[in-house]
């Protein structure tokens, strides 16, 4: 049996709700504004890593972390070989195809046969277009995807939207929705078996905290 369980958290938009969830579980010792990337809560035998969101699955697949919190969008893109036992419900967003408003006015998506698309999600983009019989040329970018149509890098983009504000601010409109995403808990396959009691205990605690936040002292006592 391991001394501590390791949980990988994604920096960025999912971090605040994830930390709130951990605080609801009574996890202590995590300083949000610190530059440290690793924290240990001795009381719960839990170690927490702060990672780039797209790196969370790799840490869990290889067992460097037992559990992780990560967006469904990244799971769909990477298809890591992990368990995905809990939908945390927060961090809702949608993966959409978008293009400039002027293009949209004269464009008919039903007639697409070849498109060039800028995206952080090459696999999902490829799968989406090829399942519709459309050839797609993918320009893989790591950020500021909305910029691509404005400077002529690609006519269209595939990106995550929450409120749609960023699209609007850049003169883009949504053409189609590819999928929806929320934050998920993922678990290393061996950890699920070899640390069965502790891992399922933590997941159940998260499940309860998600539906009735925060925990009552009685439940908290049972979880710990």
């Amino acid at each position: 049996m391991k001394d501590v369980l390791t949980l990988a958290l994604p920096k960025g938009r999912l971090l605040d709700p994830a930390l709130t969830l951990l605080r609801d579980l009574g996890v202590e010792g995590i300083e949000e504004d610190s530059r440290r990337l690793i924290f240990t809560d001795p009381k719960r035998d839990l170690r927490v890593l702060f990672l780039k969101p797209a790196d969370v699955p790799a840490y869990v697949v290889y067992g460097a972390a037992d559990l992780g919190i990560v967006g469904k969008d990244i799971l769909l893109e990477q298809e890591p070989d992990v368990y995905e036992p809990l939908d945390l419900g927060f961090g809702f967003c949608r993966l959409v195809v978008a293009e400039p408003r002027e293009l949209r006015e004269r464009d008919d998506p039903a007639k697409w046969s070849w498109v060039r698309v800028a995206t952080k999600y090459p696999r999902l983009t490829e799968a989406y277009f090829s399942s519709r019989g459309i050839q797609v040329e993918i320009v893989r970018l790591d950020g500021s995807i909305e910029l691509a149509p404005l400077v002529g890098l690609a006519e269209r983009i595939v990106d995550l939207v929450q409120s749609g504000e960023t699209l609007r601010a850049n003169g883009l409109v949504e053409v189609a929705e590819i999928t929806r995403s929320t934050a998920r808990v993922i678990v290393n396959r061996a950890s699920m078996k070899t640390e069965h009691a502790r891992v399922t205990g933590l997941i159940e605690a998260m499940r309860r905290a998600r539906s009735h936040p925060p925990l009552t002292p009685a439940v908290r006592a049972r979880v710990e």
Partner: protein
Amino acid sequence: MRAGLADIEATGICRTEPRRAHGTPLTQWAGLAVLATMRPLHPQLPKGARVYLPDEAARKRHVEARLLDVFTRWGYREIVTSTFEYADVLAMGTDEGVQESMFKLVDRETGRMLALRADITPQIARIVATRLRDEPKPVRLAYVTNVFRYDEPRASHYREFYQAGVELIGLEKPEAEAEIIAMAIEGLHALGLTGFQIDLGHPDFFRGLCEEAGAEPARVRELRAALARKDTSALERIVTDLAPAAHVGESLLALPSLFGHEAVLERAAGVARNKRSARALANLAEVYRLLTIYGLADAALLDLGEVRGFDYYSGTYFEAYVSGFGASVAAGGRYDHMLARFGYDCAAVGFAFDVARVLSVMEAQGVPVALPGPDFFIIDFTRDKTAALSLARRLRAAGASVARDIISRGLEESVAYARAQRVRHVLVVGSPRTKPAELLALDLADGSERVLAVPEVLAEPGRFFGGGGHA
């Protein structure tokens, strides 16, 4: 050692280029000419190929030998199958998903498609169904082999990988499953691994529930995909869409939590109202009971929501997980329908270890593997080499491993080489410190030095080198 000993060995089979008094050795020009005509050398391997250098190969061989030893002690005999066969014949017993990942080539004589084995079990099933059909049962077969699959390389998984496993043919009783699970656990112990867990499941439990729910094949695939990830939210969505009878829906939703020790059997009994699921559960309970008798129930975890693995499993199957490594290191189970695909209806169970994954977890757990070099390393500074060659011959005959230093170089260099090779004893003939017919014996393990008479060593080597497990 001493500078005075830095003599050059007089002759050797693999001598360096004799120095010329003036100018450049001829061979250097010849070498340049070869370089000019050679294509640039690309050292990379195709994706998914891997080389085991000597130390890695020794570790790999250690794992394979330990496992084969366990299999042998349970009464299994090794079988060797062909690396390639006609693709359509191989495909007959191979799961569809694996068929797609077979390496294929064309047979120059017949024009038929050949394939490299992507799974050895269908090959053995066919051999048993044809060549060993009349053998008295049960038939116990073991193998250590390479397997080829056009998979995306991932954690310790290459396109050519190695398996060590067994097939136990002709037994319908749950004791057969219990036997191979006990062997898998014994194998894990023999490898020095700790912190492992055997995950036990039965595909018919899930199949029975799907039949009861009237799920179509496409729905079953969706359910399986959700269960394989233990994704409860997707499972809820699919079950809501499916809208089966209330108790069936509840049973399907309960699958991911039917996971744990003995108590799971009771909880599952409440869930399994259809005959197929109930039979599966009874079989699993019996295997679990037998493992309890073997004293191995602690290492086993029942998991009725686990639906990974091959479609060919018809009964109890298992996977072995080791703490910290996210894929199973061994897997197997019952596949009673496999032999029928080759026209011989016969019960069978089997399992295999993935050798590369075992090596990974051994490294992660810091399991030591002894990698000894030769027992003896013989340096001879005399011209005629009689002493060196007769000593080498005598020591090898006595069961020791012996390497000769054939390169001409100084003693210090030779000893440094011997150390790097993890040699135990260095024997030096013709050193200025010894008389003719004597040798200097250096023990590299404890640093001691002895002068010994060559004829005495030749007569009875065990008298001088008895300790430390050497000849």
